[in-house]
């Protein structure tokens, strides 16, 4: 399969495909971070995660339209406000869902799966009724268009670089919140031993609600970033949900580092394979490899040692 290409071409192909993989990786990481927080820290399977992401995407789309019609002068900076609004909208909806639905089901993890699936169907139909069944795309500000020429044969798109930078900063922020802040310490305490955490005076219910809200909020940011590289439809979220769950499980549920490592390996494998075969076969092979490895090592790449 390498016969037709010279060494230099192959090098460029690997770099370009690697870069395409990095963009995929960024989306995976942003989606998986929220899911890893919810699933890893709380044990809740949030099948509606994709819909929280899409909510963020629609919020971004609405903000961009608003800026376009009322504040065209500030259009180049709309994205930062949109991202914050997306975080707040998805986070608020997440906390509402936790209060109305999830908190009744903490003892029945499989049932949260069914209930959140029902929620995802309702949200999908709601998006379809409100925004229409057609996919919408946001208009990118001028500075995000175009691409950066690294060498003659290697070009990288600027919006891709932006999404990657965003991913890195969000990941650092989440790592800081979870591992360094006072609230993050409470979250980890609740994960390790809910009863003891309650006994030392942590309001575990409140921690749960904010953790869920944070996870959904990050999904909203993921959706916001998603609009930079693709268009958004009512069912776009569902396309990613299984992949994202595999990323989280493959990484080891309670480990942020594992999530990042697994998102990296899965996205790189897939985008590299995609060059040599059809996209569907690349996906099949990647998923098969992940499922195969999970059968050999069910705890995932990085596992947290906790006494249960």
């Amino acid at each position, binding site marked *: 399969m390498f016969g037709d290409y010279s060494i230099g071409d192959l090098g460029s192909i690997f770099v370009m495909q690697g870069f395409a993989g990095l963009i995929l990786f960024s989306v995976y990481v942003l989606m998986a971070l929220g899911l890893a927080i919810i699933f890893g820290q709380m*044990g809740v399977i949030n099948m509606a995660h994709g819909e929280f992401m899409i909510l963020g995407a629609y919020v971004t789309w609405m903000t961009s339209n608003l800026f376009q019609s009322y504040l065209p002068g500030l259009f180049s900076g709309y994205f930062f406000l949109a991202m914050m609004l997306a975080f707040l909208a998805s986070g608020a909806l997440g906390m509402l869902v936790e209060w109305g639905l999830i908190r009744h089901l903490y003892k029945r993890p499989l*049932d949260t799966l069914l209930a959140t699936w029902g929620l995802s169907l309702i949200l999908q139909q709601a998006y379809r009724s409100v925004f229409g069944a057609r996919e919408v795309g946001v208009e990118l500000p001028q500075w995000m268009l175009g691409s950066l020429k690294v060498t003659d044969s290697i070009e990288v798109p600027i919006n891709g670089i932006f999404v990657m930078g965003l991913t890195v900063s969000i990941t650092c922020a989440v790592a800081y919140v979870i591992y360094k802040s006072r609230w993050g310490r409470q979250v980890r305490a609740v994960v390790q031993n809910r009863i003891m955490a309650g006994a030392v005076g942590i309001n575990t219910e409140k921690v749960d609600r904010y953790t869920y809200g944070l996870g959904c909020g990050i999904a909203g940011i993921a959706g916001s970033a998603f609009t930079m590289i693709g268009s958004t439809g009512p069912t776009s979220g569902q396309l990613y949900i299984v992949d994202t769950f595999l990323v989280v499980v493959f990484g080891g549920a309670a480990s942020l580092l594992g999530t990042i490592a697994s998102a990296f390996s899965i996205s790189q494998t897939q985008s590299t394979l995609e060059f040599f075969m059809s996209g569907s076969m690349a996906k*099949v092979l990647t998923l098969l490899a992940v499922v195969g490895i999970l059968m050999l090592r069910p705890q995932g790449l990085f596992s947290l040692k906790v006494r249960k």
Partner: protein
Amino acid sequence: MIINSRFFNRSELIGFVALGLVLFVILPLSLDVFRLNLVAKYLTYAFVAIGLVLCWGYGGILSLGQGVFFGLGGYCMAMFLKLEASSVENTKIQSTPGIPDFMDWNQITALPLFWQPFHSLTFTVLAIILVPGLFALIIGTAMFKRRVGGTYFAIITQAVAAILTILIVGQQGYTGGINGMTDLRTLKGWDIRPDHAKVVLYFFEVFLLFGCILIAQFIRLTKLGRILVAMREQEDRVRFSGYSVANFKIFAFCMAAIFAAIGGAMFALNVGFMSPSFVGIVPSIEMVIYTAVGGRTSIFGAVWGALLVNFAKTGLSESFPQLWLFGLGALFIAVVLAFPNGLSGIWADHVQSRIDRLVSSIKKKSGDWTSNSVADGAPAE
């Protein structure tokens, strides 16, 4: 213990007879052939739902990949029917006569090797049972021997469903792609499309369904069924008692897979086509809701759940297409939050207790001498 000395207790017997009456007598007499064929389609999901009762309700293993087994069974059947429909005379306008039309469209010039054995009906029937059974055995062994369960198992089965769908859609030339296998005509020369064939197939399916119900009931009543329940409630204790928990789980999962495959095969026969839209993640989760609505531990409930949810789906999406997804979503949430035991739970809590009270008050009125003989378990009138 008294319950186990008989195959059916009284209320189960009533359930069995009622279901038999509805499926064998009332529905065929009251519906036209088109609607009866719809019921036959719904009932194919009842097979899956019964399997899920064993695997999820009793064994506590939630599989979100039942569509995989439904699809494998359905595709095995569809491959046989498709080969019969693609005889040389029927396909003489193709550039390669004698192979299915979608292969011809995809420039495949010879029948692939794995298609060859599906010329034989015996092989096909065996494959419908064995292919999904073996596949479930492999997945189950790999997962349960390593004590993977619960949510992890659910996610991995879901991934398997995603993989199979992508594979079927991607390999158009071998599987018919997104359109699936359409235009299935005859079974051993017997046309499956006209109305009288639909009626015959309906009754054949209901017979098979009752066969599966009896098998499931048998499993439920033997020691095996009780171990499954024990495992669901306290897995470690069962393990400490010396039972191999993994083997029992594998068994339950394989039985569920085989039931689903039978349902899939009947789907291909009754509906006349098979496509990847019955394999993937969405249909697989919908199959779980049939069981959940019926009551996850009730075999009859599963059949009712499959029928009712599908009737509601057809009815709602015919008249208010917008409402159906809202309704289905609300159904998921309501079943989980408010009625974890589904219809059979509502029946047992609200209806059954009233009937029992009524029966006992009638008994009191009619004097003491009859109550002894009635209470001794004469089946319901």
